[in-house]
């Protein structure tokens, strides 16, 4: 990682990013001209009150939504012009998601949930089962592979979600309030796991409104009314 060139060192770059929603007859500027770049291997916490635009920011960064104006460069590529299939492909190959409400598929077992990205990547079933098993072990879920998510505790469910986010070996992990539904002790364990992913060299972007969670991040970005209020690098 250290030998990379300066241009290759930036993994995410937003230029004058604007997202305007049409609510009734009124336009809402959820993002109102955001320019920021994140370095490869960095760990960012995006903070701000509700309605500050941090969720919109996550959707844009996660290639789930498109900018109204401005540019979003991911791994040097402007994803603004990509069609729906290409955005799906981008998510599949480069991104891992961790959500506040875990977002596991309830009818699938732990193994099948972790396997999901590999299924869409077209992996062979044997290989993907083996990899899912390894990932489950790495987050401390040995012996739970055939359980359904409903049989797990919140912390265990978030571990499954993390294992799933890692299945496609993404460079970027987007975490949206990853400890929001967990008690303090469990939240701490989960944050240590996420911090470990950052130590492995993955770029982490995390939305949170709790400062003790944000403290795990190396950099902080405060948003308000769709603009960046303050950056701590």
């Amino acid at each position, binding site marked *: 990682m250290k030998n990379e060139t300066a241009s290759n060192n930036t993994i995410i770059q937003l230029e004058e990013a604007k997202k305007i929603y049409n609510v009734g007859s009124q336009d809402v500027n959820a993002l109102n001209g955001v320019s920021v770049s994140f370095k490869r291997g960095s760990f960012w916490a995006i903070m701000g009150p509700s309605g500050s635009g941090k969720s919109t920011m996550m959707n844009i960064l996660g290639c789930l939504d498109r900018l109204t104006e401005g540019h979003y460069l991911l791994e040097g590529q402007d994803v603004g012009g990509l069609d729906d299939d290409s955005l799906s492909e981008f998510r599949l190959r480069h991104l891992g*998601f961790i959500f506040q409400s875990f977002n596991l598929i309830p009818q699938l077992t732990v193994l099948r949930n972790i396997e*999901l990205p590999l299924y869409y990547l077209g992996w062979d079933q044997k290989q993907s089962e083996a990899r899912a098993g390894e990932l489950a072990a790495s987050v401390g879920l040995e012996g739970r592979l055939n359980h359904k998510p409903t049989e797990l505790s919140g912390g265990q469910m978030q571990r499954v979600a993390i294992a799933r986010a890692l299945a496609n070996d993404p460079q970027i992990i987007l975490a949206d309030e990853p400890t929001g539904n967990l008690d303090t002790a469990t939240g701490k364990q989960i944050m240590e796991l996420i911090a470990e992913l950052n130590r492995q060299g993955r770029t982490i972007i995390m939305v949170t409104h709790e400062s003790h969670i944000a403290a795990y991040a190396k950099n902080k970005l405060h948003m308000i009314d769709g603009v960046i209020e303050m950056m701590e690098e």
Partner: protein
Amino acid sequence: MKQNFIRDIQIGIENLLLHKLRSFLTMLGVVFGVGSVVAMLSVGEGASKDALDQIRKVGSNNIIIKSVKSVEEESTTTPDRRPSLSVYGITYSDFERMTTTFETVSRAVPVKEIRKDGRLGSKSMELRVVGTTPEWFDLVKRDVLAGRIMVSSDLTNHAPAVVLTEYGARRLLATRGSIGQNLSIGGNSFKVIGIVKSEGEEGSDIQLPDQEVDAYIPIDLAKVLYGDSSVKFSGGGIEITSVELHQAIVEVNDINNVEITANAIKAMLERFHTKKDYEISVPLALLRQAEATKRTFNIVLGSIAGISLLVGGIGIMNIMLASVTERTREIGIRRAIGAKRKQIITQFLIETVVLSTIGGIVGIGVGIFIPTLITLAAGMPTVVTATSIMLPLCISVGIGIIFGLYPAARAAEVDPIIALRHE
């Protein structure tokens, strides 16, 4: 990107098994739809097969020319007491011309009908006797139940031989032991040489050549012994009818020539007869007609049953739409992870097609079982053909695709951002 199709189907089945009762109930619509299509088609097929078999027994290469009293003749029959004389029908020379003029005619048999009192042993009754040639037994193939059929030497020897039909034998109470006995027909003695099987049931639409015939004798003897005229006393008046031949059955060498030959015979008869005292019937034409009727019958029955299949399809669509709504969050998760729209479509489509195909297969089982019951209970003939199985199976797969497309498309349109917020 390689996708393992078998695995997709496996996942689809796993998903359907999560809601066993719901999947089963949804499937029932298709089961009954397909079942009724198969059952209806088999009943239709069975009913028409009966009619077709009857026609085939007459012989599809044959043309039958019958003598009939012409319409004018009928009206001029006066109700007074003077004897009325009517002469009509096919003549010996007509028959001669039919056999010699047309190249397409391979052979022909004359039929001369005589109604005379017959007596076998102590049993006596009026018989319908047919004077014909041994070729009759080639054209109207019937199993020999006892003795033998007429042969050409019977004709050349002017042997007074008689072949009984099963029908005639039953009326005369003749048995196997009656072979060699004397049967008196109108006072002339004939030797019983054999009994042949009778075909055709009472009340059948198709007139078979041997219907209600009691016995066959050589035509030359019939001519010599009984002549062409018959006298009938009715209402105090005397009716004399003179008919040379009552029927001629003509066999055509090739099935493709049947129609031309029938037309040629018609033209020839028109030239030699001033009145229309004959009737030409072509079993092949009847066969074609019966086949056309069968097709219509099948289409009508199939369509009625098809409606229930349609209802089944709508049921599937309804449930799948509900399932898509219920699984909005799952779809959102899959899309966020990187599933493309068409992969979501495939996933839901596979579930619908699996549902409708399994329903179709079970339905075929039901559809084969119902006709068997009908045959057992009502004695109605039913025939399950390959088409009546393959067609509904293909339709049920098609139903799955057609009625699955819309719910699948709806699933693919799910916006992951909204879906993930969905609780």
